């Protein structure tokens, strides 16, 4: 079966090389504005659809019914975008060098982000009304944010990265303050906004300095110039790299730039928290990795120690502080910080092995995080109550399937074999990439394992609470799980388990989906160089 597939792919490649199949593998000339738009197809589809849905959302007064209608329409749009992405990916589109990338890495990240977006909309559609949030625009804001993420996944230009980050972040600032009646929600929004804007300043200054040092904001050009003019010892470039690192560290919540995350995650409405923990982090990491792979591989000597330190701090602090948490949302916030640390390891490795480990990890992490938050939503009571870990005591006795699914998510985040499904392989590949890097990161791998051991303390704590503690007599009855939440929970758990037993195909996919600069960039089209004068 696999053999057949690879044979097909190979023969297609050969034919494409011979020019026999130009239609099957379109090559966008990104120097031409029209073709640039074509290469941005799925992104534009999502953004344009979101603008239209914004008008639909405001067409009727706020009501639960309207909110659901817009939610379903948004889900449809997300589905359509996924189809578009898959279509682009399966046709194996290529592009000339330019401000955006047309590569499998982008499509893979797109899919992960869109799945996270779809889950978020499905969850908030059903949980928002319980908290009295009836605004239909909330779904549209999620879509806008997702549009920013798609842009981030594609961007090969620092300005596009900046725009993508801002489009994503500004929408999420609003979303985290969505619950207008909740003081905590407003506080979360304020904190996220102020610190986010603050960090944007650093990021932007970094872009400015890199531009100043290299004369370009295009990642490939930056990489070229740095290598050609030996700019790696230019203090302005290095300072720019450091500032970019700071900006991204904030967005992915790496220690010590993480402090906003627990507060914001706790205060924001739970579906939005899931969105932040999964999709936002994924998109920011994708851009982070691409910039580091494309533009700064030759500056590795300078940034290596800093990212190494950030990774270690993030893994340790995230896990250790999570041990203390009693609120599940907050615990998951620290857990997501810890996972940012694991992902930073792949940035330190910064090669194609790291990139595919990174993608595999993203999928496992997104599914597990989304699933865990979905369980929190399914069990949460209006007003963000019933979210303490202690509230889950004896869940097994009343909702065995829900408890089992939650156990799978916890095990997956822990990286436990079999029961944790993909989680185990995700960690395995990260460790594998660390050990097999050109400069083996054995110490990082050991710390990663140690940090995982520490994380047993809180992940298993949840499992223990659910399975081994008696259900308190005054525990509220569990509401029937609504359809969307149900699907998010069980589909995530099923996928995690399935690809945990049979990771094979997925690994291949992750293996093939590396950034364009890793597989040998296509030759620069003569037209492009003429146009860029």
């Amino acid at each position, binding site marked *: 079966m696999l053999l057949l597939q690879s044979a097909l792919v190979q023969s297609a490649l050969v034919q494409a090389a011979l020019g026999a199949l130009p239609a099957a593998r379109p090559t966008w000339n990104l120097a031409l504005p029209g073709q640039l738009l074509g290469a941005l197809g799925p992104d534009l589809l999502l953004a344009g659809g979101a603008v239209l849905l914004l008008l639909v959302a405001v067409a009727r007064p706020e009501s639960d019914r309207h909110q659901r209608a817009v939610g379903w329409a948004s889900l449809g749009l997300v589905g359509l975008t996924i189809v578009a992405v898959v279509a682009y990916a399966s046709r194996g589109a290529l592009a000339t060098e330019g401000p955006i990338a047309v590569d499998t890495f982008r499509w893979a990240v797109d899919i992960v982000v869109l799945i996270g977006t779809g889950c978020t909309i499905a969850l908030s559609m059903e949980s928002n009304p319980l908290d009295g949030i009836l605004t239909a625009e909330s779904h549209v804001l999620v879509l806008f944010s997702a549009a920013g993420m798609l842009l981030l996944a594609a961007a090969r230009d620092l300005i596009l990265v900046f725009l993508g980050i801002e489009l994503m972040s500004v929408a999420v600032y609003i979303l985290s303050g969505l619950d207008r009646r909740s003081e905590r929600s407003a506080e979360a929004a304020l904190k996220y906004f102020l610190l986010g804007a603050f960090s944007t300043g650093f990021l932007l200054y970094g872009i400015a300095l890199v531009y100043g040092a290299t004369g370009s904001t295009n990642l490939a050009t930056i990489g070229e110039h740095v290598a050609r003019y030996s700019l790696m010892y230019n203090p302005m470039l290095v*300072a720019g790299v450091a500032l970019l690192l700071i900006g991204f560290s904030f967005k992915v919540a790496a220690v010590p*730039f993480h402090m906003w995350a627990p*507060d914001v995650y706790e205060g924001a409405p739970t579906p939005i928290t899931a969105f932040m923990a999964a999709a936002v982090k994924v998109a920011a990491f994708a851009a982070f990795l691409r910039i580091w792979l494309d533009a700064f591989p030759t500056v590795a000597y300078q940034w290596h*120690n800093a990212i190494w330190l950030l990774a270690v701090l993030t893994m340790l*602090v995230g896990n250790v502080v999570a041990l*203390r948490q009693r609120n599940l949302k907050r615990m998951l916030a620290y857990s997501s910080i810890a996972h940012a640390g694991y992902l930073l390891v792949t940035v330190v490795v910064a090669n194609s092995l790291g990139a595919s480990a990174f993608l595999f990890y993203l999928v496992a992490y997104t599914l597990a995080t989304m699933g865990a938050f979905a369980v929190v939503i399914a069990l949460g009571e209006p007003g963000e109550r019933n979210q303490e870990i202690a509230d889950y005591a004896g869940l097994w006795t009343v909702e065995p399937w829900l408890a089992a699914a939650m156990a799978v998510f916890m095990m997956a985040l822990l990286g436990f074999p079999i029961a944790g499904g993909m989680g185990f*392989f995700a960690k395995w590949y990260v460790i594998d990439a660390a*050990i097999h890097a050109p400069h083996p990161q054995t110490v990082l791998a050991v710390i990663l394992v140690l940090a995982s051991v520490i994380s047993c*303390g809180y992940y298993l704590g949840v499992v223990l609470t659910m399975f081994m503690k008696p259900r308190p007599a005054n525990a509220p009855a569990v509401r029937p799980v609504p359809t969307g939440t149900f699907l998010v929970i069980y589909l995530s758990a099923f996928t995690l388990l399935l690809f945990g037993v049979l990771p094979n195909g997925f*690994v291949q996919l992750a293996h093939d989906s590396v950034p364009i600069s890793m597989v040998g960039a296509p030759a620069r089209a003569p037209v492009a160089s003429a146009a860029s004068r």
Partner: protein
Amino acid sequence: MIAPALQAAALAAAPHPLSGTAADWVWALPLFPLAGFLVNAALAVVAVARPGPADPSADRHSAPDATAAGEDVAGHGPGAGDADAPPPARHRFASVVSLVGPLAVGLAFALACAIFAAMARVHPTTPFVQTYFHWIPAGDLQVNAAFQLDQLSLTLVLVITGVGALIHLFSVAYMGDDPGYARYFAYLNLFVFFMLVLVLGASYPVMFVGWEGVGLCSYLLIGFWYADRANADAGKKAFIVNRIGDFGFLIAMFLLFVQLGTLDYTGVLAAAPGGLEAGGPVVTVICLFLLLGCAGKSAQIPLYVWLPDAMAGPTPVSALIHAATMVTAGVYLVVRSGLLFAMAPAASLTVAVMGAVTALFAATIGLKQWDIKKVLAYSTISQLGFMFMAVGAGAYVAGIFHLVTHAFFKALLFLGAGSVIHAMHAAYHATHSHEDAQDMRNMGGLRARMPVTWILMWIATLAIAGVPLFAGFFSKDEILGTIFDRAGGSILRDAHWLGIPGGVVLYAIYGMGLVAAFLTAVYMTRLMLYTFHGQNRTGEAARPHLHEAPWLMTGPLLVLGALSAVGGFLNTPAFLPIGPAETLARWLDPVVGPATALIAAGAPGDADPRRGLLLSLIAAAVAATGIVVAVVRLGRSAPVRAGAAPETGIESVLAHRYYVDEAYDRGIVRPLLAFSNRVLWQGVDGLIDGLVTLGARVWVWFGGIGSALQTGRVGTYAWALVVGALVVLAITIR
């Protein structure tokens, strides 16, 4: 030793001699218990999700081990078990579960027997590897989901499925009244599945899957009565300690892969001689990390603390998982990696020393326990120590031999104890008493009430004590004899351990082994005397309710009793003129032969047969002395004065215990006991336990610091951000 691997390569094209026989069905072995698990789990979930009218509270447990304390915690209060309480809720699907659970394992056993027949006919010299699919293709690492059938794995499969089937049968009666009946069998079947994956896996990663899986099941079963907080904590402890061990296993795997580029057994076997420097630091480190994994799984010092607590689980679980199968996985791992250990004499000596210290240490603790299951738990740790002594000294056959006989007699002892506890519990339940059904001070004189259990338990005791012709005698004798031989001449003798010559270490281990064997005889005889002999101390009211267990429980006991009696003839020493000699050794030779040959290199020819006989006589004499000393010192005394109801006053109980203890101490091993009691039992045990707890506390305390820094103020966060930014800038620009 490269020969088998080369042969394997040469034979890769030609079909393996086992193909076309029952061995082709090896994949079905684990599938039977897996199917059983699926059925039982489905039934359990259905029953929990929609409780029928018959079980008003899903949590109520009324199986024997659920003692008074447990029920109090469960919230039933003093009135638990009153006549007006609803009768014990039998599981809604009890009949289906009773059929499916044991049958799943029984079928696997039948298949294993068929495979055994095929293998005995062919007696292949290379392992039969069956590959199913590419499991992990990560870069250079290619791991296949594959099973490996050879003499070693088949031996283990036979033990697991055979003893497992008996224990499943026993459980049908023992757990019959528990509301979690289906859940129990689901876990138990799942355990057998993972255990089979563990021993059948053809590579370290596949073995690790089973390794983790059995850990999970063990943890679920220890905490089976999760309503009881102590049980849940015990489960947690087992889990955490085992994670430390797994960490070692994982590191060892990574190192192996980095060094050899493969993790298949056949691949490692072929690549190790060329890829690793014999006696070098790399192979030693790999072996030491593997050993860490073994110490965790097999409850050896320093990671043994979880096993005594694991007795919180149902007794058949203790018999199957915590005596016969799972805890021996460490021994299996060492034997499986025999070649690596043979290449690292220092690591091998470490294994042996660890085993010897554990054997002696646990045996002394066993002397002092009152809880019948705790005695057996420490006994298990001690016997596992014997196995590690063996495999550490390169006596791989002896280690596996003892593993097998131990599975027989320790399962018998645990099930016998279960039968006793069953009777005690029933008696106390009938009289609404809250006495501890597992405390030997409440037993005594059960011989008359439970004659079958009594006889069978004596057989097991004689076997474990090492009385000649019983199973344990041959295996223990072979361990001690081989260690003595190795001390005389082997690569271990020429190696050094912490600067001490290997020969000295091995003689010391031999001495410790003898002392431990002596103590084994003492504590087991003590257990028998207090439980079955002397006056009965159960209490006037409860005494008439003491009955022999039903046939469904005694039946498996009978089978195990027979095996404990004659199991030793699997591998009789050559100098004894009884039956065919060294059957097991010849059977296992294709697997452990190369490693044994490597480690025994330099042995002075054929040893004098008279020396072997002398060593056997010494071992027999030690066992006999132990039994005699125990009988003489304890036979006439009783832990509590006859006739005095123990429940009348805790003070009198304590006082009498004190007198008896003093006599006991003075007579036998007072200094040893004091040492064991104060330093080892309270000191070391407490220290290790404390260290684990302290480790957790320290991390949580660090977590507290992190939490405290999280002030909730934007100002603080901005400062952290800027300080972090300055640090990053400083590091980057440097």
